[in-house]
């Protein structure tokens, strides 16, 4: 034992000497040299929250302040007076920092000393600094197609690496197909490329792929992981949710190459845009992908808050790769974000009218065609007498029927019961009950819709009174029986511009009871002179109760005057509320204290040219999908605990192009990436490169990345010719084993889709959160419970069992075997063709031999076991059965499951 420690000490000293002699007298760079030392050794005790001894190193002012023992940790210019320096170099084991850990190296101590000597200047973490326009390095060799290559080559060179040769065209075409549209090329598509002799054949192919409608389907998967899109609500019963219109919106937006700033604004705040279109409202379903708890006995407000917290965390993770989640309970331990700033972000999202109820209101209703014609008529009528804007406002009102004033908003009630658990959100009223709404603006209101549900045998009366329970009656309604909840108008006549409204319920029946869902304020139609006026109102009243085909949950702000107040939660506990806060973004990002009103302001700020972080974060996300990992590997965290960029200048160059020059065009970003020579490199790994760069950080070769869950299935269906081209619409249920869906309190069944719907692309597969499609989950797809920035690829035997035995892969194998069987030729020819169909290229001799052998052996076996062959392919054709076994093997080759 003693011998070992002696040796260690020697090694340590040698290293020290090497390090010390290599030290230069340059100015110390805080981010590059000091921050890593602090983060590694100090920050867990001397951070933003935990400041042991009163000393913290997240903010400069804390580091320079007096500590508990009266000493000052960092005295700029005077290392000898700085307690930090004296403690990290202390001789006494009781005093030396970091406590109970390996002392700092002499080199680190020297760096810190010199840094203080030079004035202990602070620097913002790299991600929060504005990017300079990086200078594109010169490359001194005949390699490189665009600026990406220049930046990449510079790093290769400094790591003694050189670019790999270009991939063979067969592998390259397959790769670029899989990367841009998620599907492999057909043999014909590859041949067409090979036979094209034009110099620009590759560019032409790339442009064609970017124009393909399949492009949007492929890239939607990535965005839907971030948006935690699913077809069910989550939690116990995990009932179905109709929200596929949102998925279709994402596909369309990507196919149209909607600029990313607009893409952002419409999803976060489409409802707050002036005169929003249907698509802009559907886009807001983005944040309605949060879970909804339908379990008996759960508190609606608790789970509404849970959804809002998720919206905050998701927004900050997607656009800023900033981990807001931690700050919910306490200030950020490492990054300069404080606890109140979480709740200031929370306030942006705390004012939508959704409330964890099964109806998922607010929803955008889509009517059947007859109802839609009625609605179009009204739209036209209003448009004629007023404007299209006014007409659109009414159309949206009829589709959404919000903002509704609901029981949670009632300012005062008497003799009522609020059912606010899981399945319910309504107010039970009885004879002599009342509900008060405070200070309601009545300027442009001539009717209030009450949404209520009342049984047949009983009748009630509703009086609407202004200012007090004994005030003047400004509206009256006989409450007749309804069929479920219905919207019924109460005509209001008053000259007051504002009033407290009292809804007073009366009945002669002592057992009277009525359920109230809420009130909608009905604005005046733009004119009341038109002779059709009354008729139009009648039609609107009917439309407000019309049945509908589809609904999509959307975002709607609460009625003015009924906004929620945002209070901080003590240690994240929603039942213990403390200070009131209003919406704004953290000071770190808002040094000028600009004012923020609502979600729209937040969305616009996220994609403002001045916000350089967004360009970096988003460019990095797309880069990481192509190369298997980001320039910043932790694409979810650009904070001080995340990884640093491997190619910081390249990241800034891409971010600047993306957010400025290319006007947020995702297609231009991807085009530039796949046109680079970096991308086109072969993925063959030389021993030298493997030794120098085992994890391929420096990109001196193309990475070999395993295909995603969706790609693996889509690819098998494509090469066998089974894949359906159908786009959009409700999610489908391809075959899955019986008994996968066994969820309590829910009779939903997996109804296997018929016809081409059984062979749609993976992203159309119904995703039930508690029971996702088994093969996707095994291949690391997201359960879509929370925002997921990157899937972590794993390798388990269960994956092999899927591609070996899942009937989908057997359907594909049989289908391809049929095609191969029908050609003229011997066994080898058939095997070779099967390989070519699957991989797009010619088989090597060795592989051909292995597979031909398998075919021969299998056929021999089936000749002696004919009934087994019949069982496998439901045909007496032994060749078909044997070829099926061969194709099944082909679809399990490593090269089929990865992109070369």
């Amino acid at each position, binding site marked *: *034992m003693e011998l070992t420690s002696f040796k260690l000490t020697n090694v340590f000293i040698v290293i020290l000497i090497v390090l010390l002699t290599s030290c230069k007298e340059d100015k110390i760079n805080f981010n590059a040299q000091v921050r890593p030392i602090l983060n590694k050794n100090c920050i867990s005790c001397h951070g933003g929250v935990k400041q042991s001894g009163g000393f913290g190193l997240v903010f400069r002012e804390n580091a320079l302040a007096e500590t508990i023992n009266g000493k000052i940790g960092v005295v700029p210019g005077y290392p000898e007076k700085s307690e930090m320096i004296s403690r990290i170099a202390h001789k006494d*084991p*009781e005093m030396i920092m970091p406590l109970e*850990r*390996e002392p700092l190296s002499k080199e680190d101590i020297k760096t810190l000393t010199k840094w203080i000597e030079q004035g202990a200047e602070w620097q913002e973490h790299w991600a929060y600094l504005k990017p300079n326009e990086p200078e594109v390095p010169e490359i001194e060799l005949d390699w490189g197609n665009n600026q990406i290559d220049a930046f990449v080559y510079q790093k290769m060179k400094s790591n003694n690496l050189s670019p790999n040769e270009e991939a063979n065209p067969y592998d390259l075409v397959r790769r670029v197909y899989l990367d841009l549209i998620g599907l492999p090329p057909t043999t014909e598509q590859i041949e067409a490329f090979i036979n094209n002799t034009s110099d620009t054949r590759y560019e032409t192919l790339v442009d064609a792929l970017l124009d393909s409608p399949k492009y949007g389907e492929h890239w939607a998967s990535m965005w839907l992981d971030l948006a935690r899109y699913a077809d069910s609500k*989550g939690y*116990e019963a995990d009932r179905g949710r109709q929200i596929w219109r949102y998925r279709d919106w994402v596909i369309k937006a990507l196919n149209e190459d909607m600029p990313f700033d607009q893409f952002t604004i419409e999803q976060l705040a489409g409802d707050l845009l002036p005169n929003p279109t249907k698509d802009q409202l559907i886009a807001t379903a983005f944040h309605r992908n949060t879970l909804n708890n339908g379990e*008996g*006995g*759960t*508190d609606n407000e608790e789970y509404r808050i*849970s959804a809002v917290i998720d919206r905050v965390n998701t927004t900050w993770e997607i656009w800023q790769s*900033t*981990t807001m*989640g*931690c700050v919910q309970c306490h200030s950020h331990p*490492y990054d300069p974000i404080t606890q109140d700033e979480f709740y200031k972000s929370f306030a942006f999202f705390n004012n939508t009218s959704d409330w964890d109820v099964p109806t998922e209101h607010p929803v955008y209703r889509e009517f059947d065609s007859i109802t839609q014609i009625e609605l179009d008529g009204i739209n036209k009528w209003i448009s004629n007498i007023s404007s299209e804007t006014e007409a659109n406002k009414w159309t949206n009102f009829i589709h959404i029927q919000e903002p509704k004033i609901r029981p949670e908003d009632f300012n005062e009630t008497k003799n009522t019961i609020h059912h606010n658990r899981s399945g319910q959100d309504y107010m039970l009223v009885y004879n002599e009950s009342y509900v008060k709404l405070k200070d309601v603006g009545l300027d442009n209101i001539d009717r209030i819709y009450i949404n209520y549900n009342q049984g047949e045998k009983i009748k009630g009366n509703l009086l609407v009174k202004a200012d007090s329970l004994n005030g003047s009656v400004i509206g009256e309604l006989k409450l007749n029986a309804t069929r479920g909840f219905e919207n019924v108008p109460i005509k209001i006549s008053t000259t007051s511009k504002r009033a407290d409204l009292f809804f007073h319920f009366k009945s002669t029946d002592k057992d009277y009871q009525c359920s109230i869902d809420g009130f909608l304020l009905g604005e005046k139609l733009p004119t009341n002179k038109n002779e059709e006026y009354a008729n139009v109102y009648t039609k609107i009243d009917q439309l407000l109760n019309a049945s509908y085909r589809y609904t999509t949950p959307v975002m709607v702000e609460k009625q003015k005057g009924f906004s929620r107040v945002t209070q901080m939660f003590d240690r994240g506990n929603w039942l213990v509320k403390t200070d009131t806060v209003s919406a704004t973004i953290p000071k770190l990002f808002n040094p000028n204290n600009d004012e923020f009103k609502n979600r729209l302001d937040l969305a616009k700020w996220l994609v403002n040219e001045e916000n350089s972080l967004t360009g970096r974060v988003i460019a990095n996300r797309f880069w990481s999908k192509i190369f298997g990992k980001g320039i910043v590997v932790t694409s979810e*965290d650009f904070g001080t*605990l*995340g990884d640093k960029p491997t190619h910081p200048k390249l990241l800034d160059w891409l971010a600047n192009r993306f957010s400025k020059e290319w006007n947020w065009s995702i297609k231009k970003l991807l085009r530039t990436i796949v046109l680079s020579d970096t991308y086109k490199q072969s993925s*063959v*790994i030389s021993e030298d490169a493997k030794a120098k760069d085992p994890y391929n950080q420096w990109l001196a070769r193309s990475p070999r990345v395993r295909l995603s869950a969706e790609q693996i299935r889509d690819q098998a269906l494509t090469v066998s010719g089974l894949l359906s081209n159908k786009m959009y619409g409700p999610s489908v249920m391809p075959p899955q*084993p*019986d*008994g*996968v869906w*066994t*969820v*309590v309190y829910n009779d939903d069944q997996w109804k296997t889709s018929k016809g081409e719907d059984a062979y749609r692309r993976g992203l159309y597969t119904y995703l039930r*959160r508690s*029971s996702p499609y088994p093969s996707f*989950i095994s291949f*690391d797809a997201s*359960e879509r*419970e*929370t925002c997921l920035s990157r899937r*972590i690829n*794993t390798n388990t*035997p*269960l994956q*092999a*069992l*899927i591609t070996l*035995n899942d*009937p989908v892969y*057997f359907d594909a194998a049989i289908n391809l075997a049929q095609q191969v069987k029908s050609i003229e030729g011997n066994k080898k020819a058939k095997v070779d063709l099967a390989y070519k169909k699957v991989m797009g290229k010619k088989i090597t001799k060795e*592989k051909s031999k*292995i597979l031909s052998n398998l075919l021969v052996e*299998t056929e021999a*076996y089936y000749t002696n*076991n004919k009934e*087994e*062959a019949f069982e*496998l*392919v439901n045909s007496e054709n032994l060749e078909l059965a044997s070829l099926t*076994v*061969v194709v099944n*093997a082909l679809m399990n*080759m*490593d090269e089929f499951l990865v992109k070369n």
Partner: protein
Amino acid sequence: MDLYNEAQKRKLEFTTRRHFLKQCTTGLGGIALSSLIGPQQLFASNNNTVFNAKNLPHFLPKAKRVIYLHMAGAPSQLELFDYKPELQKLHDLDCPKSLLEGKRFAFIQGIPKMLGPQFNFKKYGESGTYISDALPYFSTIVDDVSIVKSMHTDEFNHAPAQLLLQTGSARSGRPSMGAWVTYGLGSENDNLPGYMVLVSGGKNPSAGKNAWGSGFLPSEYQGVQCRNSGDPILYVSNPNGMSRDIRKKSLKAINDINKKQHKEFNDDETLSRISQYEMAFKMQISVPDVMDVSKEPDYIREMYGAKQGETSFANNCLLARRLVEQGVRFVQLYDWGWDMHGDSKAGSLNEGLRAKSKEIDKPMTALVKDLKQRGLLDDTLIVWGGEFGRTPMRENREGRIMPYYGRDHHTEAYTIWMAGGGIKGGFSYGETDEIGYYGIKDRVHIHDLQATILNQLGINHEKFTYNFQGRDFRLTDVHGRVIKDLLV
């Protein structure tokens, strides 16, 4: 001195005097617990990198594997373990307001009545442990188990409470206990998944598959559910017409091609692919074998009450033993149907709970005895319990009297039992008040239970973290303490 003990000694030498003094305040156990962490951290280059699972265990484990018997729906502690004669005296009286104020219940509204214990209790074993007449078999093994009567939780609905128990958080998205454990300790058998889940009672637990999900841990650590019909593990069988012979030939071809591929591209991931397919083939052989209870002698099946071809808690207990015997690290059983609100006969205490108790009594007793007779109980930890307890009040949903006797969900006090894996036998921990409403002594929170389970596996729950979304996550969040009194 063996390698392990030598490493321990070396680690201890690293600790300073100050460290010693500080750790001593938590008792000698504390030294063993936390002093061993230092050196590994000294050499950790960067705390961004994923936790190196190879550093585990942190210290010498008492248990190598866990069998968790989760009674989904939450059995009534007041009818099974926590004898409250005082509650009988209050039977049918109005519940005092003091017990209701500021409390949130799932279904109780207005003023409910108190409900006395519905079953009779007697003392059993040398330890003189009270057990109700619903568990006659179990009463014979009380001297082998520890009963914890002072459990409490934060959640009063099934799904969130099950998630809190199994994942440490009431919201979905965190890794389950079994995922954490297999992530940390791996499996002892490459031919079987390290974390397996068996479900009985006709339904999955309320929390669904999240209860055995891998959350943000890599998906290979999720629990693999053994299915009740069809393949015991999805796609483990070859399709009809593909014999094991043909499969073997085709796997050989796949791996031969992959070897050529490796020669061509020199990517070591291809080698992982080859072993992945080898393991899949081994799994195809070993899974159907281990899941076949007919391989057991009659007297063992009889001991559990297991019947071939059935899906029952009894069969699952027997399978659990077969699985841990094969080196499966974490076996999770769920038995559905314990939610006795009094809304139906099957949902009543007197009928439903008695029937459910009868279903589990014999098999869970057999599991303890069988492991013991095989010498496996010493290093296998068994935990039995629900996700919360039941109220001493009778449920009165929407203020109305329920048709049968039933109790509402209750977070403040409930009972679990543990056995084996370094847990004391014949021991009772914690006390509740006279009516079983609150724990009044040695309260044990869900996170404490989790910390204790990890501790028995040689894992310090505070040091066992995974970095996700910029934060180090733990099974026990920022809570949890090991209940040392329970340990041998």
